[in-house]
């Protein structure tokens, strides 16, 4: 930083991402409250611990290798050449955005006066990782072991979502070039993949005892503390503002970036370095939230649990194109996503006996998938990148956004990187006898001994004479 304007831009950007991290922390607080509120009294503390412990597990692995994956894998490897070095190999060379700088032994993965951005950007992505793992956490409460969840959290939080981010959320990602993939606020790269992963795990894990009658009819195990669920979901909404902000670059001059001689165009950009405005995405965030709430209230006949979740699903469904949609388009897309997700949730529950305790697969997975597909139609013909525009399948240029590319992108997110890995890892854990808690413990409650000890302690205190 040698001049005041450069310093101001750098420090503003550093502080901007730092604030997004603080805001996004509320997502995790919200998820913890929401899950505890949704679980039964006898499982509360274990449910809380399970979701809390993903923080250190994912953070440490994100520091050790998760962040490296994001920078190393945009080319596949072997699928489309990098625009930086024209190679399809892992990006571990000397180029500016090389993964070689993003390893735990690198000097910029620490306090470094020559770099003001890496740590806050790393943390913003880390908070996305927590969110991905938390989405899975809610679906599987009351019957998974904390050990198994830890492994699954690391897999989705520090491996699979970061691969999809490299492929479909990096400015150099092969999915942009070959498919014309566009997912500005992570309908697919966070939500569809995490929902798909959760579904894969649920297929192996099985339902909670008592969820289905002997004839296979599903029973409702509703939230035990609706107020905790309410506050939790409001906190997730609040944290989502930080999530949206963190998906942007707040101030950037696109003229030199796109090689336009003599042109200076300062703007906020999305993650792909194409222009948008914080003002515009604020319209769209609130209109898609409203669309989701309206549709959820109607389709669930005023059920608070589904109405709140539908607000979230509305945002998630519109997120892929919320950098460009008109606010009314966002609202309607949010409504469509909620109605389809709600119907799909109950259809899958009945048909395949899937017990998704909090509706996470529907709210995140189905809504995210549908959002990607709709985005392909509504944004058909828009460029997926500012660097170049080319044909689908070419790979050396960037394909325009199109319905087929977005549909294939949705398949990659939900099934290839989500459901299939979740299913396989859960199968392995199941084979080791480590996936599910014993039936007797599930019936008695994971917190039985904690509660019993607390009761004896209370009794002793109450009968004390001095």
């Amino acid at each position, binding site marked *: 930083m040698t001049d005041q304007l450069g310093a101001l831009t750098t420090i503003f950007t550093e502080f901007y991402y730092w604030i997004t991290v603080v805001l996004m922390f509320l997502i995790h607080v919200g998820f913890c409250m929401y899950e505890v509120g949704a679980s039964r009294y006898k499982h509360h503390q274990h449910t809380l611990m399970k979701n809390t412990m993903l923080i250190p597990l994912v953070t440490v692995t994100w520091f050790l290798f998760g962040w490296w994956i994001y920078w190393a894998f945009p080319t596949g490897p072997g699928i489309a050449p990098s625009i930086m070095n024209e190679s399809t190999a892992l990006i571990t060379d000397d180029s500016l955005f090389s993964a070689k700088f993003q390893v735990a032994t690198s000097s910029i993965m620490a306090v470094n006066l020559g770099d003001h951005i890496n740590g806050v950007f790393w943390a913003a992505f880390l908070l996305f990782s927590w969110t991905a793992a938390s989405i899975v956490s809610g679906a599987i409460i009351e019957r998974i072991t904390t050990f198994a969840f830890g492994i699954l959290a690391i897999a989705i939080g520090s491996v699979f979502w970061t691969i999809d981010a490299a492929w479909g959320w990096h400015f150099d990602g092969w999915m942009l070039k070959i498919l014309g993939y566009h997912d500005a606020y992570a309908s697919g790269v966070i939500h569809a993949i995490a929902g798909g992963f959760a579904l894969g795990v649920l297929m192996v894990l099985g339902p909670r005892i008592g969820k289905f009658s002997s004839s296979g009819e599903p029973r409702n195990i509703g939230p035990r503390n609706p107020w905790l669920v309410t506050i939790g979901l409001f906190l997730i909404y609040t944290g989502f503002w930080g999530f949206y902000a963190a998906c942007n670059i707040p101030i950037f001059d696109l003229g030199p970036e*796109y090689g336009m001689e003599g042109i200076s165009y300062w703007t906020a950009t999305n993650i792909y370095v194409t222009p948008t405005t914080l003002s515009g995405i604020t319209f769209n965030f609130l209109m898609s939230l409203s669309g989701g709430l309206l549709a959820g209230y109607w389709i669930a006949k005023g059920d608070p649990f589904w109405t709140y979740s539908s607000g979230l699903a509305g945002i998630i469904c519109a997120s892929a194109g919320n950098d460009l949609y008109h606010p*009314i388009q966002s609202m309607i897309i949010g409504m469509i996503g909620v109605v389809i997700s709600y119907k799909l949730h109950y259809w899958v529950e009945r048909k395949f006996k899937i017990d998704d305790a909090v509706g996470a697969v529907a709210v995140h997975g189905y809504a995210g998938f549908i959002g990607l597909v709709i985005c392909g139609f509504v944004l058909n013909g828009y460029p997926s990148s500012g660097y170049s*525009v080319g044909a689908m399948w070419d790979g050396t240029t960037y394909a325009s956004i199109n319905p087929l590319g977005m549909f294939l992108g949705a398949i990659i997110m939900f099934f290839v990187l989500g459901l299939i890995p979740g299913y396989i890892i859960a199968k392995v854990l199941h084979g080791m006898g480590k996936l599910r808690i014993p039936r007797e413990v599930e019936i008695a409650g994971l917190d039985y001994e904690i509660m019993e000890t607390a009761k004896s302690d209370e009794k002793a205190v109450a009968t004390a004479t001095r």
Partner: protein
Amino acid sequence: MATVTNWIDHLNKPADQVAGAVYPGAGSSEGLLVILAIIVWVGWHVLTSKSESEELERLARKRHGANDHKSNITDW
């Protein structure tokens, strides 16, 4: 319906000459979108009002007492 098909073409001019509205259908679809929003908004009121009335009538027919809800509290 794409308003922008190439960002370099769109931005490669002095900043004050760059067309600002970039959403799909900019300049041609706003009126239609507003009409659609009004239809959705009115339709939502009609549908939810109808379903709420049905629900309230169903509840009223059961004639529960003031303390009956206490036997429905679950916490386990």
